[in-house]
């Protein structure tokens, strides 16, 4: 079942069409990537999902029913890009307050906070004020606060920005862990290499419209350019052939692009016939980064303001 369905969502502001007819579905238990350049409409979209903004038209279906912000926000955890916390408030107290606002009862919340603090090595922080923490530390705290009430849907906006590799890894592991336990996670980011590592399904939006929608594998396949990587013991001097062309020469390797209709076995046959030793042979799929740039380029990347009404 889909945990969330977006049907033709629209949100127009006076200076731009932030979200212009977007529809997609998110399966339960998925790790879902929401990608797009700056100004694409990601944050507006997320704010509609978390009940902070209301759509101008279109429907949100949460768990099979029409989305009701009052009762559904309890089942959603949101970590916005603006990493904010009450600076002067003590950490333990603050986590408790925010958990209670999400509907948790006091004893339950305190126990869970303690458990998480131990898990992420934050035990000594309980009575410290937020302003005493470094950025990385406060982000760990923010993450804990977001997932504390065991939400079914977790939304993370740029969760790794500002984290060092160790902490980034820590959070990544926790995300996988949560996904195993059945939570669905929406990830909004620019960092394509993370997306490739973590996400099952992605959606790319630009200028308020959806441009790509599919699993990572599907999209890569869609954009593949028939490029293959060949490991050869010795670089051959002359490769005159019409079944492929060499795109790049690298030490010990060739990057070749197959012509239309040519089979991989044809390539192998060629090399065998020519007595060239092949060490390895595999397809090179385009990186999401390249796909992103390709899809978004051509049209202006930076959003201009336009008159809507």
């Amino acid at each position, binding site marked *: 079942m889909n945990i969330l369905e977006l049907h033709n969502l629209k949100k127009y502001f006076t200076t731009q069409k932030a979200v212009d007819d977007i529809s997609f579905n998110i399966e339960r238990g998925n790790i879902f990537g929401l990608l797009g350049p700056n100004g694409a409409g990601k944050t507006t979209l997320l*704010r509609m999902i*978390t*009940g*902070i*903004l*209301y759509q101008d038209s279109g429907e949100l279906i949460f768990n099979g029913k029409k989305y009701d*912000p*009052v009762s559904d*926000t*309890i089942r*959603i955890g*949101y*970590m*916005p890009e*603006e*990493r*904010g*916390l*009450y*600076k*002067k*408030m003590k950490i333990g107290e603050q986590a408790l*307050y*925010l958990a*209670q*606002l*999400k509907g948790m009862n006091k004893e339950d919340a305190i126990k869970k906070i303690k458990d998480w603090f131990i898990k992420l090595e934050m035990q000594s922080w309980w009575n410290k004020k937020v302003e005493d923490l470094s950025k990385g530390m406060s982000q760990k705290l923010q993450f804990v*606060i977001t997932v504390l009430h065991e939400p079914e849907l977790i939304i993370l906006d740029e969760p790794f920005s500002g984290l060092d590799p160790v902490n980034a890894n820590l959070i990544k592991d926790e995300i996988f862990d949560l996904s195993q336990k059945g939570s669905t996670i929406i990830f909004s980011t620019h960092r394509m290499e993370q997306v490739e590592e973590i996400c099952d399904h992605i959606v790319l939006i630009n200028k308020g419209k959806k441009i790509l929608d599919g699993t990572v594998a599907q999209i890569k396949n869609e954009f593949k350019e028939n490029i293959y990587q060949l490991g050869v013991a010795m670089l051959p001097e002359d490769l005159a052939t019409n079944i492929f062309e060499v795109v790049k020469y690298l030490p010990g390797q060739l990057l070749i692009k197959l012509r239309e209709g040519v089979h991989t076995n044809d390539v192998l046959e060629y090399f065998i016939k020519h007595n060239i030793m092949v060490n390895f042979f595999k397809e090179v799929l385009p990186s999401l980064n390249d796909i992103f740039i390709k899809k978004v380029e051509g049209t202006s990347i930076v959003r201009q303001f336009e008159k809507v009404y």
Partner: protein
Amino acid sequence: MDKILLIIKREYLTRVRNKTFLLTTFLLPIVILLFIFGTAFLAASTPEKLKKIAVINDPGMFKSNLKNDAGHLNFDFTTTLDSVGFKNSGYDALLDLNNDSISKNFTILSKEELDIKTKEMIEARLDMAFENNLLEKKGIHKEILDSIINQSTGSFTINNRRVSDRGSSEQVNASLNYGIGFSSGFLIYITMIIFGAMVMRGVMEEKTNRIAEVIISSVKPFQLMMGKIIGIASVGLTQFLLWIILIVILLPVLSSFLPHALMQNAIEASQNIHSGPGNSALMKALELKQMADSVNWLRIICYFLFYFLGGYFFYASLFAAVGSVSNEDSQGAQSLMLPIMMPIIFSFIILSSNLTTPNSKIMVWASIIPFTSPVVMMGRIASGTPWEQLVASMFFLIAGFVFTTWIAGKIYRIGILMYGKRFSWKEMLKWAFHKS
């Protein structure tokens, strides 16, 4: 609903447990009381120097009539001094009467500039001398005159009773009503200004801490706004209560430290009351007590609470709306605050200039319009207001704060999520009336 309670609790506790709150609450009244008593004490206990004044060229009538002012002025009639020599002879000043018994204007030469009080005392003594002289000429004895004045001054009082349409009457005391009206109006005025600013700053907290989105993803903006307004109100009420308790405890303690005569002096010095012959301070106190008993305190306190809370909520939501739209730049915030403070200040001006005529047209209107009613109506309550006007005023105030809260909610929900932009009144109005 319990989310609002959670928010109220948090707002209240974080402010009340703050060191600054505790400091201001406990220190301020102590500081103020010490200040008042201290200055009065100082003023009263500074020994006043006796001023010696040489008088020359007396036309004749002054010598027997110009009396010394014990402890302050000593007049010495002499013929041997001139305008230079008086200093060496130990005099502070030289009064030259020019042998003139008609003129009322004389010159006094002095070592140092005479202070105003001394100057006035000298003039008063000259007046008295002249009066004595006239009395003598007319054959009136001073003691008899004084006794007559004594008996007739301040011996008559009238009690005012207001008759209602049904014929019952109740005791009325205009000056007490004035006092009550003024002080309650003043209290409400001051409170709204101080707490308005506090609400505004409180509302900006989510923005400056950038936590607005996180909170709004858990509660509705309206709940957050109301939680803050009520939470801050409770902090204010707590502070008031503590101050009242402190003052009630401290006042008798402090006064017991000062000797009674000095206290008298101190009070007189700070209020410039000259105890007339017929009125001792004790009688005055008794009078006050009688007046106090004649007032229906319960009724006044109930109305006070109503207008206090009504006015607070009316204006607090406006301050909240303005705060939600401000950034950390305090310049912008201050300038947005001004248009809201103006009606508050204006209502106080109306109150203080028209309090002696509590039922004049301007007072009637100002006590019904919700912008000015909290301050102005309190000025009229003690003097009796027709019930239709009271009901109208209360109705409009309630309707008023429901309306301002509703509008503020709409502005708040948008303003609190916007960063970095300054907003014009036009835009705010647009949000206020835009259908959500």
